[in-house]
């Protein structure tokens, strides 16, 4: 399973705005993988949205989920 991931703001600077990862079935393991692949991420606070909702705690990722990495908002 390949998961398509969107990244925004500062995170897109680090990871690119679209990329994919293989076989990460929950958000904890995704965070861990990303911290290994992009060491800069380990010091950055970000939320994960699955299907356009921010999740809290470790959350399962389905094959069809849309996954997004969201740094702190700064609109308005």
């Amino acid at each position, binding site marked *: 399973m390949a998961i398509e991931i*969107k990244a*925004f*703001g*500062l995170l897109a600077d680090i990871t690119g705005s679209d990329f994919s990862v293989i076989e990460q079935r929950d958000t904890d393991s995704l965070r861990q993988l990303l911290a290994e692949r992009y060491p800069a991420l380990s010091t950055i606070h970000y939320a994960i*949205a699955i299907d*356009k909702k921010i999740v809290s705690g470790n959350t399962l990722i389905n094959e069809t989920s849309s996954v*997004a990495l*969201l*740094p*702190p*908002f*700064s*609109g*308005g």
Partner: protein
Amino acid sequence: MTEKKHKQIFVQGAISSAFIADSIQKHSTKTNIGAHSIFLGQVRSDSINDRKVVAIDYTTYEEMALEKMHELREGIFAKYPLTCMHIYHSLGTIAAGELCLFVFTSSIHRKEAIDACEEVVELIKKELPVWGKEIFEDESYQWKENK
């Protein structure tokens, strides 16, 4: 295309004063309105470590932002007896001095329009997935973070 049902709030580029005037003017036929409250966000030329901000470049996760805004809008209308509410947020590069946010609430009596407008502005800042990149004179940049 389930997002289609959500009202668009994003506009490319700055919000012009003519656009705001036009929005206000349109309400003159709604003679049950007694009060309008408007909030405008303007890009500020802050100095950060001696570098001056000349513009902010706004990006969003649009599908999520419109879904979230739809949800916030329903909450506001459930809480306040508003006649109408209009929200516009800029995307792209907005120069210092230009307007990037326009929140416009109307009601029969003043209290509801004023309170709703303030609450919507706070919600937009806290809950909308929008990011502002502060661009300096020398084209370097840093990502904003809302307080």
